[in-house]
């Protein structure tokens, strides 16, 4: 093993882990203030629950030798996951790097069901989803014995595994849970757009680890993936801004943040496979479908609240297909795409996309129905009106503290009139 490869993969893993808090801010800024913490927590808990489950079982199901459709159990409880080399880096580090992908993929789904889903139901859902949907699909695409892998599907850093997969699950979840109270009657405005910009900035930063790290070493492939990850979103941002200016002479900040994410999603499967100039084209092209999908979505009854489908689902599909168009063996050493005389690649990409859609949709739907049979998926209408921060977490994001009466644990008197309890305390100091 070479220290340079280890150095880069340590860095890359840290960068990808940071993406989940970044997502918490990207999403958290877009909701109303009374749901800010709930939205952010949906990302943060993934760091815990998905992270631990990945180590205990998910990694084995995804990336240990098994069949074409799912991995085996040989690495359950990290058995055999040591500091020995796996490729250029310690096996243990490879496991951790892959784990950060599972975490953020699960967290991505939350964007579709914020401001209404019960927190505990969400916890159960993403835990099971990672094991039953994410792990298998990851196996298909990235394991040496995965069927899509062997079929030659290209997915450099997770266009299908991560983004299409999460986007489809988000679509299903939004359908199953139904729209928010007053959806399409009232306008729900983002309570803190700077947070969304902060999230977008940190996501871009982290994504360099996501794509650049997928080369699994500090090599020229990493350099290519890194640079395309810088150029593609830049192009998406340019096109998106121009579309905004043309449409109503105002370049929106939420739009800019969205554009950055769309560009990052689109380049993900292509990062190490296309030339830098192709990356600029790919990023620019990818802006269009997502831009109009957002305009269309709000006319529908589908309350995919933070547009996971338009940004990740659609962006991922466009990226996966364009990978089949722009791939260049001259740059990647792997395979050519349509433009370079290999139309077949485009069909393989299409098949991979469809397979992911079908599987993810089916299992995600089943999971939600099963969980819904055991516990309510949605918060009560009254809780939704009050806000999920208070109802699900017993906190406010921005508390003033006016008229907050301290209840001393040892003298808790829920029945007694509040001011009185305050008086009691008045007595003791």
């Amino acid at each position: 093993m070479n220290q340079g490869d280890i150095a880069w993969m340590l860095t890359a893993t840290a960068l990808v882990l940071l993406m989940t808090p970044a997502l918490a801010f990207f999403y958290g800024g877009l909701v109303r203030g009374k749901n800010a913490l709930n939205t952010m927590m949906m990302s943060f808990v993934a760091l815990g629950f998905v992270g631990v489950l990945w180590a205990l079982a998910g990694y084995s199901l995804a990336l240990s030798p098994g069949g074409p459709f799912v991995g085996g159990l040989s690495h359950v409880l990290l058995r055999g996951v040591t500091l020995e080399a796996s490729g250029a880096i310690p096996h243990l580090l490879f496991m951790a790097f892959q784990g950060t992908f599972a975490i953020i993929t699960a967290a991505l789904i939350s964007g579709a069901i914020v401001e209404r889903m019960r927190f505990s139901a969400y916890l159960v859902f993403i835990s099971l989803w990672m094991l039953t949907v994410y792990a298998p699909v990851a196996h298909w695409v990235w394991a040496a014995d995965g069927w899509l892998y062997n079929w030659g599907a290209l997915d450099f850093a997770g266009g299908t595994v991560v983004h299409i997969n999460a986007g489809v699950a988000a679509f299903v979840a939004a359908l199953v849970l139904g729209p928010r109270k007053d959806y399409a009657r009232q306008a729900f405005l983002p309570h803190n757009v700077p947070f969304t910009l902060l999230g977008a900035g940190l996501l871009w930063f982290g994504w360099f680890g996501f794509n650049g790290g997928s080369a699994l070493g500090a090599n020229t492939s990493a350099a290519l993936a890194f640079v395309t990850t810088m150029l593609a979103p830049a192009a998406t941002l340019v096109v998106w801004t121009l579309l905004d200016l043309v449409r109503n002479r105002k370049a929106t900040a939420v739009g800019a943040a969205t554009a950055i994410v769309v560009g990052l999603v689109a380049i993900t499967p292509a990062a190490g496979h296309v030339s830098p100039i192709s990356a600029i084209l790919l990023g620019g092209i990818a802006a269009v479908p997502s831009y109009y999908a957002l305009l269309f979505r709000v006319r529908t009854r589908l309350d995919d609240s933070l547009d996971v489908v338009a940004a990740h689902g659609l962006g991922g599909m466009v990226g996966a297909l364009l990978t089949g168009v722009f791939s260049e063996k001259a740059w990647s050493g792997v395979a050519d795409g349509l433009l370079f005389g290999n139309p077949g690649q485009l069909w393989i990409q299409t098949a991979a996309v469809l397979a992911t859609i079908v599987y993810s949709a089916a299992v995600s739907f089943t999971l939600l129905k099963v969980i819904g049979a055991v516990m309510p998926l949605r918060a009560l209408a009254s809780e939704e009106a009050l806000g999920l921060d208070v109802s699900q977490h017993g906190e406010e994001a921005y508390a003033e503290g006016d008229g907050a009466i301290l209840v001393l644990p040892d003298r808790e008197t829920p029945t007694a009139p509040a001011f009185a309890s305050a008086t009691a305390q008045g007595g003791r100091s």
Partner: protein
Amino acid sequence: MKLVVAIVRPERLNAVLEELYKADVQGLTITRVQGHGGEREQVETYRGMTVKMELSEKVRLDIGVSNHFVEPTVKAILKAAHTGSVGDGKIFVLPVEKVYRIRTGEQDEAAVTPVGVPAHG
């Protein structure tokens, strides 16, 4: 001239605005306030500390109207702000001695009739 002061639930604000519009009441000023009354307080926890929240979010509307407009205004609010559970809020009607429209210096009646809307009565 009267000033109608109403305290309503934030989630009912849009409904109240609609209803007021239907009643041809257009000029108004709102303020985000917090109220205490008969509602059950909510409990919150921060680290070890448990707190009872005495105050709940409300919105206050101040509406200056000419006398014969008081009743429709109050009716509209009573209708749109009502949910039936404790915490719906109150309406106060206060006497007003004089009203001025800053833009024109117009007074009373004339002052509270928004531009482009025919004065009533």
